[in-house]
Structures are given as C-alpha cells and as structure tokens.
C-alpha cells in the first residue's frame, strides 16, 4: 500500500514560531514553520547549527523550558479513534475532547491531557539518548518503569512480557533484560532507547540525531532497524539530523531548515535529483562522494548565522550565489514550486512569479555553483 493510498493526516503544523527570551532581546529560533505529516510517513528535517530543528522538535512535543517559549502557531494532531489494543489506555480527558472534533492542538493541551498524550501517541528519542539511560537501573527495569508509569495497575508479568517483546523488536535477546547500560555497547544502548520509545505503540516518534554518536556500521544497522519498525507498525517518524545524506535513503519527505526558517520541502527523490533552493543544492553537494569523478568541490561560502544577528530579508542571502536585492529586503514565503505538485515547496524569491517566469532548474543552480568552484580553483 503506497503512502498516497494510506494518506491520512497525522500532524498538521501551521505557522509555528518559537522564541528565546535572552538578556539583550528576543531570538527567533523557529519562524512560521508549517508542514504536514501523514501516517507511516518518515519526514527528515535537516539543517546545520542554529537552524532551529531541535527547538522545533521540542516545541511540537511541548518540552520547551523557559527562556524558550512558543510564540505562535498550532500543531494539530489527528489521533486514531478506534484503538483497541492493550497498550492504549483511553484517558478520559483526551477522549472527551475527541468526541467533538477530529484533531487536537498539542499546544493547547492541559497538563493532564498532555500526560495522556505523551508516549501513547507521541514519543521522543533525544540526542545522545544512549547516555540518558539511568546507569543504576537495568534496562529491563527502565522499560518496565515506563510501562508502569503509563499503564498502571497491570500485573508484573504483563510488563515483563512487553519488555521482552520490545527488546526482541529491536534485536536484543531477552537475557539482556538484567544488564546495566554500561554493560552494553553504544549500538545496543541506542536500540534500548528506541525500544522504550516504542513501548506504547505511539503513532508518532520524534528522533533527534539518534545516530550522531555511533560509528558508521552501527549507524547503518540502526537506520535499517528504524526503517523496518516504521513500516511494520505504520508509525510516522520525524527524523532530525545534520547529515542530509542519511535522510536521502531513509525518509519519504525531507524538509531543510536554515536560521529558523523552513526553506525547502520535497520528497527525497526530488530533493536528490532536483533540489530547488540554492541552499539545498549547496548542502547536497557539500559531501565528498565515494565514487564518481574527483573534482575540487566547494562548500557554501560563509557560515550559518548567529540567531541573534540574522541577516535581513532571506537569511541565506549573504551566502547565496544567486541572490538579488529583493533577497535582502523581503523574507521569502514557503510556496509550492508549481501548481501541480503542491508537495514540493521552496522559500526563495527566484520562484516568485513577480521576479521570474519560472524558477531555476537544477542545471542553472549547478552552473552558478560551478562559478564558485572555478573561482576557487583559479586562486
């Protein structure tokens, strides 16, 4: 069954804005971000330091602490109404809300509703989560702890059985139930954290750089595990990373963030073959390749901006090879590239019908970046 046939909306983020109150002013960490996620879809969010991707994830999960706060927007979640399995506890507070409407705004949930919501519907795997395992509890106890917190009043054999099931799902043998985290390798600890995230069969998992601290071989294993689990349980996944090449293989859709803005959104195939935004193109071509001809490559000149001093207009304009003066004045809006494909969106003035007949083709962007390489080679 393809994604299109199963296309039920799961998450609808509209104009989400998150600010940090710093001593000398407000920093806009996330600016008017909007995207949609369907059931079973894997969305990859890529960006460099300061782009706001982690803040976005925490904002959606309502995990922000002061001085960070949500300054606007809504995050609509469409839960399944027909859940019957034993791992779902029908929290009455949530059910009442659902009787009247199809969706709930995560940002407006009360603390009680939030507690019912978390881990049942949405779970999160943090950056270097494998170091977040409690060193004085066995991993079995940690899984059971989570189960007990969300599904109270069940017998211990229920919890134990579920813990063994979960470890089996992630490829850890049952005898490891009584191991402490320091007795496990990095890869196994990461699998444990993923198992904990799956404990209650959530429909949405957010993973923030889950493989950054792992070696490349283990990383490949973990990515394959994540991919197969999402397929098996039809779980949607928001995968956040700075490594765009991982997302090309793993995710269905990719969103690129720069300095708090979502600058491009496309399927991974489109992103790989036809990146629309000059930044996306630059980012894709900033990775040395394993095969193909060996030529001197040029990254993107300059560096990602400090969020306290974001350039006016399009934040990318000081580094953009194709910038023109509107870019310095007006912030581009995320809009579809063409009328047919509403999935593919770019925030770039080059696609604005007021400025050009049609947006640049990938070859044209490539040509412009080529002038950079030539300039660099002559040096």
């Amino acid at each position: 069954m393809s994604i299109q046939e199963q296309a039920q909306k799961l998450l609808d983020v509209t104009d989400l804005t998150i600010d940090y109150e710093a001593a000398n002013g407000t920093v806009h960490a996330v600016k008017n971000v909007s995207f949609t996620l369907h059931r079973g879809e894997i969305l990859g969010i890529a960006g460099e330091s300061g782009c706001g991707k982690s803040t976005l994830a925490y904002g959606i999960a309502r995990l922000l602490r002061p001085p960070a706060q949500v300054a606007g927007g809504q995050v609509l979640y469409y839960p399944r109404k027909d859940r019957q399995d034993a791992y779902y506890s029908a929290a009455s507070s949530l059910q009442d809300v659902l009787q009247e409407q199809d969706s709930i705004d995560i940002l407006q949930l009360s603390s009680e509703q939030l507690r019912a919501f978390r881990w049942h519907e949405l779970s999160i795997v943090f950056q270097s989560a494998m170091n977040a395992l409690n060193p004085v509890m066995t991993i079995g106890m940690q899984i059971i702890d989570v189960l007990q917190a969300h599904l109270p009043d069940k017998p211990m054999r229920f919890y134990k059985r579920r813990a063994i099931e979960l470890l089996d799902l992630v490829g850890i043998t049952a005898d490891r139930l009584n191991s402490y985290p320091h007795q496990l390798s990095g890869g196994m600890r990461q699998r444990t954290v993923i198992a904990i995230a799956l404990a209650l069969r959530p429909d949405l998992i957010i993973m923030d750089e889950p493989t950054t601290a792992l070696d490349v071989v283990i990383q490949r294993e973990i990515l394959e595990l994540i991919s197969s689990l999402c397929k098996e349980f039809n779980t949607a996944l928001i995968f956040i990373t700075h490594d765009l090449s991982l997302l090309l293989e793993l995710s269905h859709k990719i969103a690129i963030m720069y300095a708090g803005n979502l600058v491009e959104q496309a399927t991974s195939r489109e992103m790989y073959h036809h990146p629309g935004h000059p930044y996306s193109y630059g980012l894709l071509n900033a990775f040395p390749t394993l095969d193909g001809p060996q030529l001197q490559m040029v990254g993107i000149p300059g560096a990602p901006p400090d969020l306290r001093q974001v350039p006016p207009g399009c934040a990318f304009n000081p580094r953009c090879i194709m910038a023109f003066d509107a870019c310095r004045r007006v912030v581009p809006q995320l809009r579809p590239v063409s009328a047919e494909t509403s999935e593919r969106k770019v925030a770039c003035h080059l696609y604005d019908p007021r400025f050009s007949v049609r947006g640049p083709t990938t070859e044209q962007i490539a040509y412009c970046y080529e002038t950079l390489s030539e300039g660099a080679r002559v040096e």
Partner: protein
Amino acid sequence: MRQDVQFSLPDDASEASGSIDAVQQAIQHAPQRAQVLLAGEIVPAAESQAQDLQWRRFSSVFLSNPRVLTGLYIVGFFILIGLFGPFLTHQDPNALSSDMFRAPSPAHWLGTTQRGEDIFSQIAYGARVSLLMSFAAAIGATLIAVVAGLAAGYFGGWIDEVISFLINIFLVLPGMPLAIVIASFAVKGPVTIVLVLLFTSWPWGARVLRAQTLSIRQREFVTSARVIGERPWQVILVEILPNEIALVASSFVSTFVHATLTAVALEFLGLGDMMVASWGTVLHWAQVDSALMANGWWQFVPAGLCVAILCAGLTFINFGIDEIANPALRSERKLRKSKKGIA
C-alpha cells in the same frame, strides 16, 4: 558589511517580463557574485567591538550585583578602619586609665575595660592586627593550595599520590583541636597563629583546585600547548591557571573568613599574645573579666559584631565570584526578577 555586488530588480513589478527575469540575471551575475563570496569571511559589524572578556564580565556581573556591592563596602570599611582607625582615636589601646568599666560615653566611644583601656582604640588597632593576620594566613594558604592543587592535578603519578595523601590527612584531622594543640606548645602570638592557620587551611583549596585542574587538563587546548612544546610550568601558569582564577579568588576569600574566625577563636582561648590588642584578645579579656555577667555588653558585642560583619561581607563577595564563574546563576537571578516563563 562590505559592498555586496547584487543586481537590483524592481520589486513592485507585478509580472515578470523577459527582460527582468531574476533567474537569468542571477546566472549572468554569478561570476562576479562568486568573487565577492570567495573574497573571505565577512565579519559582521556587531562583532567588531572586540571587548576584553574578563573586564566586561567583571564589571557587568560583579559590580552590578547588590550583594557584592554590599560586601565590597563592608570589607572596604574595615580596611579603612584598619588603615586610619588609629588616627581617629588618640588613645593607646593598652593605656590604663581611671575610667574603669564604663559604658560608652563621649570620652570613650565604646566604653572601657576593667582596667580602663579604651575599647574603641582596641577595636581600631585590633582591626589592623586581625586583618593582617587573616590576610597573611589566607595568602599563604592559597599559595600553597595553588601550588599543591595544580601540581597534583597536572602531573598525576606519584606527585599526585603524595599530595592527595597529605590533603586527605589534613582534611581528616580536626582543624580546631589541631590548631589548639600546636598553638599551645609554641610561642604565643600572631606569628604562631598565622603559621597554624597556614598549616590547617590549605587542604580545602588544594582539593578543589586539583579537581578543577584534572578536568581542564583533558581539554584540547592543554594538549595543543604540549604539542607546541610548552614546558610543564608554562602550561600550568599560562594555560591552566588563568582558567581557574575565579576558583582561586573564591578559595582566597573563603580562607580569609576561615582564618578570621579561627584566629579569633584561638585568641579567645588565650593562645594569642595577650599584650597585643586584637579582636580576639578583646573577647578573651571580656571573658576573663566576666563581662557578660557584669552586663558589660560594650566589651564583647562590638568585637563580636566586627568579626561577624566582616565575614558576612566577605561571603557576599564570594557570591559575586560564583556568579562570574557560573553564568547559570546569573540568569536564575534575572529570571526570578522577571517572573516570566511559559512552557
């Protein structure tokens, strides 16, 4: 910002025509744009005020904190008393007079002792003695702590074993009884007290500095210094110690407090030189003269208050040092003030 070579388009154009197509223009201008972008890192204007990190932090954090200012005023006040106090009073602190055991009066601002000595003079002269003793002890103990802590932390191996062993022994031995024992056997006087204080106060700072040095030693700038060829003493003094200034300052202030209190206690027990007026000896004589039972509050309250207020002032200064070293405490204070925060 340096001049950006960018072509301009009328941005109120409603329809793009062939002649002002942005994409075409971008392609044409690309080589020039490339030159601009490749010309080097563009330094944002706001950053070019290169301010000294230390001074800016110091003045904005330290001097603007009300507690720290209070502490500075208090300690400053006592230093002034120590420097100029004796000029305010025209009386020799040890001079006996016929006004014995009088309450405070215009002639004797803080009253007199049983033997007619002017208490205000004793406090004023005593400030000098007490402050000097505590200062000497604190400086000496901090120096020893710095040398021991940094050496133990940096060199490791047997140097660390020996120094840690010494630190542990001195920490385990109860300080006050040890001080009393030593002072009672040696020649009584300020010098002995200073030496005793040195002996018993250095381990605390040394332990903390050793831990901090161990942690800084792992940082790559220390490894870089070694690879460049810096000798160990250069690495310690130039690279590691400047990062620990806040800790050293804080340790100095704490030792100052500890030294003041211990010196006063030792003198109170009669282990100081009874002929030299200092705050502790004032209290000692007050006790010997049973001032409490005779309701002679002026004999012990002023001296006690001086000690207490001085130590409080020093502790306030320490709070400020903590805030410099740990920026998180600063923002906590600000947040408490602002009362904002929505998750």
